[in-house]
Every structure is written in C-alpha cells, then in structure tokens.
C-alpha cells in the first residue's frame, strides 16, 4: 500500500507537468476523489490506495508516454502496444501502478469523456467521478467509501460546481443500461451509508435520493425506451477483467 498523501502529490505533479506540456490529463479514481473530498482523508472514509488513475486523450498518447517516462515511471510496453489507443499502463520502482484511460471510460459501461476534460483543472468533474464509481456493478469496498465521500462533501444540483445531476440524468436518459446500474448503485449506497458511523447519514442519503429522483424524472430517449422493453433479459453491463 502507498501513502495517500504521496500518491496525491504524485498525481498533482503529473497533472501540472502535463498542463505545462499542453496535454490534457486529469486525476480520477480514488486519488481523484481524495483530491476533491476532505472527508476521504479520515475515518470512516479513509482507505488504502494501490495505484494512480488518470484520464487523458488518445491524441496525446505518445506525449504522455514520454512524460511519464521522464517522471520516472516505466511504461508497460507489452500492454501499451496492444491497448495504447485507449489505455496506458506504467509502473513505478516500488511496483505502484499508474493507469491512464484515454478518450473513453470503459468498465461496466462506456462513457465518452473527451469533451469533459476542460471543465475542471485537476480531476475529472465531480459528476464524472461519481459516475465512474456508480457504474460499477460489482462494487468493492473502495468504490463504496469513495462514493460516500463524494456525496458527503458535495451537494447534488444542476451545476458543474457540484455533482451535476442534470448531466448525469441526461446521459442516463439515453442509455437504459447505465440508468439501470446507476439507480441500482444509488439504492445500494443508501443501504451502505446507513451502516457507517461518523458521517452525516441524512445529508448523504438526501443527496443520493435527489440524484435518483433527477435520473428518474429526466425524459427518456427513444433508444432508452426500446432497450427498456428488453429489460433485464439481456445483460446490460460488462464485467471488466483485472489487469
């Protein structure tokens, strides 16, 4: 395991370096959430961190490989040769991993985040950080605590400064599978939050509820409605493999 503060400092260094080089790079994952959520620094939401996750653009792929090498990381050439158009992998001397997702976030659901990188300077937006955690079908302990940290520290509203429920509701209104997973996750989170001590249950629960209501209220696209007719008879998510 690695010290959260060290990883966060490494993340900020990489983002600043990328910015200096004119490259779009944002933190995401656990460290991205730590950067935005003070509650993730202490119990019950503090946790161990294994790696650093970033989001970038595939057009910068070669420049990002060069930058991370210059920052002292070793590129996983084998992995990058095969998957480098959508993902880059690096390793530090102490076996710490750095993941750089490019253009699309693709786990249980696929999200096009290319146009979202310009909104916030250091991390993905709060809404995107929330979606990347809520779209996980088989959530682990870290996904749950990270999500609670986001909703504990940030309000939910149709505003990019907070967790933008309008944006989340809009993409869910066009993708039945994502809608299904996110609403399931929000329900699961409500149960999970009730079991935690040392946080404001009411605040988090109210924000989760508000998010769920906004997602449900958004007018759905024709594509969404057609897929809804098939329902759960067809699998609506992917289960990613570990690398």
């Amino acid at each position, binding site marked *: 395991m690695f010290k959260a503060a060290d990883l966060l400092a490494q993340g900020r260094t990489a983002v600043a370096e990328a910015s200096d080089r004119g490259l779009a790079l944002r933190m995401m*994952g656990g460290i991205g959430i730590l950067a935005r959520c003070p509650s993730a620094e202490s119990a*019950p939401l503090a946790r161990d961190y*294994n*790696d650093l*996750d970033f989001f970038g653009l*595939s*057009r910068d*792929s*070669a420049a990002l490989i060069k930058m991370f090498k210059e920052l002292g990381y070793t590129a*996983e*050439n*084998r*992995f990058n*040769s*095969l*998957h*480098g*158009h*959508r*993902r880059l*992998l690096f390793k530090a001397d102490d076996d710490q*991993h750095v*993941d750089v*997702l490019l253009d699309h976030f*693709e*786990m249980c659901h*696929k999200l096009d985040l290319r146009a979202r990188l310009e909104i916030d300077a250091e991390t993905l937006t709060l809404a995107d950080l929330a979606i990347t955690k809520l779209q996980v079908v*088989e*959530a*682990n*302990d870290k996904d*749950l*605590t990270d999500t609670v940290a986001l909703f504990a520290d940030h309000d939910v509203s149709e505003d990019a400064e907070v967790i933008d429920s309008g944006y989340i509701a809009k993409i869910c209104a066009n993708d039945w599978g994502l809608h299904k997973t996110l609403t399931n996750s929000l329900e*699961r989170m409500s*149960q*999970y939050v*009730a*079991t*935690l*001590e040392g946080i404001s249950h009411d605040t988090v629960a109210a924000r989760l509820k508000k998010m769920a209501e906004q997602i449900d209220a958004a007018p759905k696209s024709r594509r969404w409605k057609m897929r809804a007719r098939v329902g759960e008879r067809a699998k609506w998510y*992917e*289960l*990613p*493999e*570990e*690398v």
Partner: protein
Amino acid sequence: MSAQVQGRSAEPTETQVFARDSTGLVREVGPVSSAIYNLSYSSAPLSIALMLSLAPAAYLGGNMFLATLFTLLLALPTAFVFAMFTTAIPRSGGDYTWISRSISPMLGFASNFSFMVWAVFIIGVYGTLVPSSALAPLFRFIAAEFNAPGALKVSKFLTEQAGTLIVGTLLVVGGSAVLIFSRGVRSYIRVQNIFFGVWAFCLLMLVPVIMLLTSKGSFAGHFDSYVKALGGPAHAAHTVTASGIPHPGFSLKESILLVTIPYYALGFIYQSAYLAGETKRGSKGVLMAMPGAQIISAVFFCLLIAAFLTSPGRSFLAGLSINLGHYGLEPAPQYPELAAIASGSTVIGLIIMLANVLFYVIWVPLSIIMISRSIFAWSFDRLIPEKASAVNSRTHSPVNAVLMIAVVCIGAVVLVALEPSLGALVVLLGQTLTFVCVGLAAMVFPYRQAAVFAASPFNRRIGGLPVISVVGGLSAACMIAMMIILLEDPNSGTAWSTNPGRVITCGIIFGGGLIIYQAIRIFQRMRGVDIDLAYREIPPE
C-alpha cells in the same frame, strides 16, 4: 473472478461487496467475435470447395461425412488445448508463449516460427485464390447473365499469372493498409463480423436451401444455359456427368485419407488464441470460440455436402474437375458459382458471388493480425528489435510489424503465382508439427507452471492427473496421427512417396527456427542482454 468479501460495515448488511484490486479492463474482442475470427480463419469456403471438387474425383470411395467426423474427432482435443491455454496464459503469440514458458524458449520459438512461415505462405496462396476463385467466377457469372464479353475477358485475365500476381499483391497491400490506418483491432473486428454475417447467410444458409430445392434435372437445365451463354457446347451438364468417375463403393482407407480436406478448415479454427491479450477471457466464451466453432463448422460442412450430393450429385461433381475444356468452363466452377447457377436468378446469383468475394477479402488482414501478434511476442521477449512492435503514435497500429509481414507476403504471392502446384494443402504438415508441440506443452504445463495452472479456470484433475495434461496428450497423439495421414495422402501435397522435398522443407523450417533462436540468444548475450530472463515471467497484457 470477483470473490465476495466482507464489507466494512459496522452492522450486517445486504450490500454485496466484491474484491477487485485494480481498475478493470474491458478487452476489445468478445467471444462471438473470437468465434467469427476463428471461423473466418479456418478457410471453410476453400476447404468445402476442395471437398466438393476433389473428394468425388480423387478420393474414390471416400465418404465425405465420415471424413468430416474423423477430422472433428482428431482436431477437437487440440481445440480444447488451445482454449485451456488461452485462458491460462492469455498472451499474444499463442503457441510461442505457451511452449516457451512450459517446455523451452527454443522450442517455443521454433514451433511458432514454423507456424508463421506457413501462415505467410498461405497468405500467398490466398492472394492468388482471390482473383482465381472469387473474382474470376464473379466476372464469369456477370458475363453469362448480362451477355458481357468484356467481363469474360476480365475473368480469364484473373486466372492468368499476371492477373493473380497483380490482384494478389493489391490484396496484401490493401489488407495491410486497412490494418495500418485502423485504430485498434476493434474496428477491424466490426468489419469482419459484418462481412462474415453476409457470407454465412448467403453461403451457409442460402446455398444449401437452393441446392436442396433444385432437382438434378432443373440444375442441368440452368447449367446448360449458363455454359451456352458463355459460348460453350450444348448439353454441358450431360458431358460433365458422363466424364465423372463411377463411385466404386465405400473405402475406409480413402475416407481416412480424405481427412486432409476438412482438416484444412476444422484443424485451424482456434487462431484467436494468438490475440489473446485483446480477447475477453471467460472460459465459456473461449470454449464457444474454439471447440464450439469447430463443431458448428463441421455441421455446416455436412449440410453443404448433403446439399450438393442431392443436386447436382456426386457424378457431376466428379466430372467437373476432369476434362475441363470439354464443357467450356475453365477453371471448373466451385460450389458458390454452382449455387448461383442453380438459383436461376441473376440477383440471387450475384448476391452469392459477391458474398463469396467478401469472405476471401477479409481473410488476408485477419491472417496478418495473427502473424503480427507473434511478432509482438518475439519483440517483447527481445528476440527481435523492439521497433518491430512499435505502434504509430496517431493510429496506434503496429505499422512496422504489418509492413514487415506485407513485404514477405508479397514474396509469397509471387512464389505461389509462379508455381501454382504449391497449393493450400502444402501448409498443413508444417503447421500440424506446431500443434504436436502445443499438445506436449499442455502435458507438462501443470508441472512447469504450477502456480499459473492452479490459477487458471481449467485446473481440474482426473484421477490425480491434470485434465489439460490428459487432453494435451490426446491432442499430441491425434496430431501425430494427422501428420501420418498427410504423409500418406497423395493429394496432400506433402506425401512422402511423391513430395519428399516438401516434407524435408517442413523439417528445415522448423530446424531453422531452432538455429535462429540460438543465434539470437548468443548475439544478445554478447550485447549483455540475457533473454532467458523474459521467460521466467508472464507480464501484463
């Protein structure tokens, strides 16, 4: 995969919490696409064409259904070995990675080198087959249906040396360009799936229906009209049937030798293993993509054989390959053209002929992908320069590897165009030798890579013996039996009695791989690089 673990909740809760250590990766090629890749690589259309034209004329007394069943039984254990290895060591390079980590790096390289040399050669064969077996019949059909003498001239040109050379070279260049300019394997796979879908509907579904619904008399009428439209003699169907060799009755020996033909398709239906780094890894999906695809292919093989034995019948098929000039069609029409003729419809006939072209067109790039993944694996292990696995910074395609393969493949096109006797079947012996090595590697894998075996989905034992070892032994034995058949069959192109030189060539290529590996090892050691270190690990991919 994901194991359910205890959550951090203070009280019991129904919330399920799963274990996952790192950010997940959704690999690009799903099980259905893998199965289609394998079915496409298996060259079923060519194999079926060879079966329907060669079996009645050259394997007298051979039973096509029984030969298909024998082939399936001989090849099925290898399909299972490939499926098990793909899930246990899902890395690029297939047999190279498995054998190098289970037996020895030298044998792994020699086995894979030999396989890839023959894979390049078969691209050369395909390069010449596209003009002669796909485009020429299409233009001939157009000439007959639209009374277009110009199209007939084009058709004839495509069967001549210049035509096969030009189109074959263009095909390799075009296929390479597609791979260079496409981003990732996913975009190619999408095209592959569409082309295969069209081909499968037309050639595997429409064609059998047409032939089963067409009487012999009706077919003869359509065939006579077709030949006449192309300036051939009257009553051509009768001429063809009369020149066929009478069926001498069932022969077990010929049925066994006939295995050569369906083996060309059913024995090479697990090549998605070579891009295992990019394919999804569920064990059920891999079983569907390899042994499953093999069984599906065998079923369609039998369906097409049954359809063409119904109409136009065995005597007609036997006569097609004999005395070509007597009935005015040269080269002899293959089954897609026969089905197009039987349909009696210009539109349906054109659809069938175009679908046939689609299949041949996708074959070359999919083979280049497979070979490029072996080059990647060699490069990752420092057997060849790192530049070989370099990717374009914009498209992220493996430009150098594809260009290297393209140059060698164009050489293969030239070789096959200049020496047409080097048919497709010649590759079988050399590639089967690789399969024997894979079977042997499977036998020792649980003992040489105990931890990897234990972590794999196929880690069960029977009577204390690992299942993969048992299936590996069976696979090696079946592939040795297959090699004996290929050495005995005078039509295989590698019969010891008629083509000892080609058999020796197979050995030289394999032995060359052993020597090349040792030379590289010594060269790298002189530079201070110990390549043996690479074989002690299975890095992330």
